[in-house]
C-alpha cells in the first residue's frame, strides 16, 4: 500500500542527493547531500520493515549512528581544512595533486 510511493520518494530523494553531490563545490553542502542520500536509504528501510520485519528499523538506527559519527568527524575535518586553506571548496582541496 504505502510501499511503492515510499520507494518512489526514496529513489527521488537519493537521486537528488547524488545530483547535489555532483552539482555543488562546497564541502559542507556536499556533506549534507550525503546525509540526504542516507535518509533516502532510511526511508527504504522503514518502508520495507513494514512488510519484511522490524530488522529494517534497527538498521535505520545503525545508519543514524554511523551518520552521527560521520558528521562529527567529517565536520571536524572540514574545520581543519578550512583552517589551512580558508576555504571549504572542493576545488581547493587538491594538496595531493602533483605540484
Amino acid at each position: 500500500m504505502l510501499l511503492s510511493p515510499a520507494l518512489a520518494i526514496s529513489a527521488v530523494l537519493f537521486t537528488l542527493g547524488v545530483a547535489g553531490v555532483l552539482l555543488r563545490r562546497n564541502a559542507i553542502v556536499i556533506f549534507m547531500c550525503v546525509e540526504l542520500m542516507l535518509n533516502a536509504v532510511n526511508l527504504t528501510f522503514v518502508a520495507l520493515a513494514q512488510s519484511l520485519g522490524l530488522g529494517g528499523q534497527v538498521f535505520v538506527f545503525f545508519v543514524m549512528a554511523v551518520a552521527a559519527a560521520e558528521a562529527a568527524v567529517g565536520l571536524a575535518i572540514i574545520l581543519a581544512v578550512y583552517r589551512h586553506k580558508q576555504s571549504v571548496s572542493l576545488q581547493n582541496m587538491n594538496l595531493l595533486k602533483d605540484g
Partner: protein
Amino acid sequence: MTGTTVDLIWLAPALALLGFVLNGTLALARPTAKTLVSTIGAGVLLAAFGVAIAVFSAFTGLHAPTEAPVVFRYWSWIPVGTLQVDFALQVDQLSLVMLLVVTGVGSLIHLFSIGYMKDDPGYARYFAYLNLFVFFMLVLVLGASFPVMFVGWEGVGLCSYLLIGFWFTEEVNANAGRKAFIMNRIGDFGFMVAMFMIFWSTGSLDFDTVFAHAPTALTAGGTAITVITLFLFLGCTGKSAQIPLYTWLPDAMAGPTPVSALIHAATMVTAGVYLVARCNLLFALAPVSSAVVAGVGALTALFAATIALQQWDIKKVLAYSTISQLGYMFLAVGTGAMTAGMFHLVTHACFKALLFLGSGSVIFALHRAYHHTHSHEDAQDMRNMGGLARYMPWTTALMWIATLAIAGIPPFSGFFSKDEILTAAFARGSVEPIWLVFWGLSLVAALLTAFYMTRLMIYTFHGPNRTGEREQTHLHEAPWILTGPLVVLGVLSAAGGLLNVPELYHGGEWLHHWLEPVTQPGAALRPEAPLASGTEWMLVGVAVAVAVIGIVGAWQLLKPERLVPARNAPEERGLARILRNKWYVDEIYDALIVRPLVWFSRVVLWQEIDQRVIDGAAVNGAARGARALGWANRWIQSGQVGTYVAVFVVGVLLILWRAMG
C-alpha cells in the same frame, strides 16, 4: 622416576644454573663482592659434585647393569607432528662417568680459580660464565636426546667463546674467541645435518628410540649410516679439535688458564669423544666411518705431537698435547674400544687438568714476579723460565707425576689408558691391517709425547733460571688455594689407572664392566679380535720402551743451559721453523679457504650480486618501475574531488545497469 636419589639428577644442572644466575646478577649489580661470588661459584659446583656422588651411589644400588637407562622427562619441548622432543635427562653408566668428571674436575678448577683470578676486575663475570659452562656441559652429558644434547653442545660453545675472549679488550683474545666459535659452527653444522638425517631415517631423536630402531632401520655399512656418522664426526672434529678443525684450540689458550684446563682440556673438548661413545651403535654399523674416526684420531695424535715439539709457550705445548691426546681417544672409539676411549678421557681429564693448572701456577708465579719488577716479559714463554724446581717444589713434583702419566710410564694412570688404546688398535689390526698403520702412527706419537713433555719439564723446572736477576727474588710457590687442587689432581693422575686395571695384571676392569650396558650393543656388531697374552705383554713392553726412550732422549738431547730468554732468542731454521709455525696450517687455511671466501663474498656476493643485482635491478628497478607506472597513470589523479565523485557515480551506474539486467 625411580623413587631414589637418582631422581635428584636435575639438581646438578639446576645448581650450576642457579650459580650462573646469582653470579650473573652480582656481576651486573655488585662485581666487587668477591667473597660471595667465590662462595656461590665454587659452592654450587661442590654441591653438584655431591649430587653426582649421591646419584652415582644410588644408581649402583638401583640397577642391574644391563637394564635400560633411566630417563626423566620434564616437559614437552618441541611437539611438532611426529617430532616429539621432550626436555629429558638420561642417567646411565656413560653419563654418570661424564657427570663425575665434569663436576669433580670442575670443582677443583673452580677452587683453583678463586686464587688464580683473585685480582681480576671481571671476577664475578668469570664465575658466572664458568657456572654457565658447567650447566651446559651437564645438559650435554645428561641430555636424553640429540636436541637436548645439542643445547648443551651449543651452550658450551657459547661459554667457550665467552671465556676465550674473557679479556676481550685485547683484540688477539677476541679474535681467538671468534675463531673458536666459527670453527665450532662448522662442526655444529655437521651435527645438525646428522640430526636431521637421524630423524629422517629412524623417526625419532631420543637416544633410546634411535638406538632401538637403528639396527633395523639402517643397513649396516650402508650409505645412510655412513653419511650420518661422518656428519656426526664432523661435529666432533669441531668440538674436540681434530683434523681439520683443530686450529682453534691452540688459540683458545688466550683465555684464563683455569678455563683452558676445564674447557679446553678436561671437559668440553671431550664432548666429541662422548658423542661417539654415546652413538657407538651407529658407528659400529658404519665400519668406514669408524675407520675414518680412528684414522683421523691417529693422524691428529701424531700431527699435533710434532707441532708440540717446537712450541715455546707453555700453554701452547699443552694445547697441542691435548689435541694429540684427543686423537688417541678418537682412535680408541674409532677402533671400537669405547671403554679405552672413555678411560683415557677420564685419566686425561685428571692429568691434563693437573698440567694446565700446574702451568697456571707457574704463570701465576712468573706473572707475579714480573709484576713486582714492572717487566713486560712473556710470563708464558718457557725460554723465560728454567730452574723453577728450586722455587716451586710442589708444583714441580706434581707436574712430573702428570708428565709421567701422559708419557705412559707405569703405574701412572696414563700408562693403563694409553696402553689399552694401543693394544686395541693392534688387535684390530690383526683383522683389518689398516689399523696397524694407525697403531704405528700412535706409537710414534707416544714417543713424541714423552719427548715434548720432558722438554717442557726440563725447560721449565730444570737447568739455570732465565727469568732475570731481579725477578728471581719474587718467585714463590703459589698459595694453597692454587696448590691444593693440584695435589688432589696429582693423586688422581697417579692412581687413576686403578679404575680399569686390565686382566693382564689380574685387575677387575671395573670401568669396562661398568660401561658394558652402554657399549655392548656396539661391541656386539664388531669383529672379535682376541690377542694372546704374550702379544699383549710384548705390546706393553714396546709402549713402555717408547715412553722411556722419549724421556731419556729428551734428557740427553736437550740442553737447557744453551737456551736464552725469549727476547734474545735467534730465529729457528729448517724443520724447527716449520714446526714452530705449526706446519703453516693456519696460513694454508687462510690461503685456501679464508681468502677465497672473503674474495668471493666481497667481489661476487657484495659488489656483483648485492650491489648490482639486488640493489640495482631488484630494489631500484622496482622503484623505477613504480615511478614509471605512476607517471603513466597520474592523469587519473586530477586532485579534483568533483571529478572523482563523477567517476564514482558513473561506476555505480554501470554496476546498477549490470545488476538490473
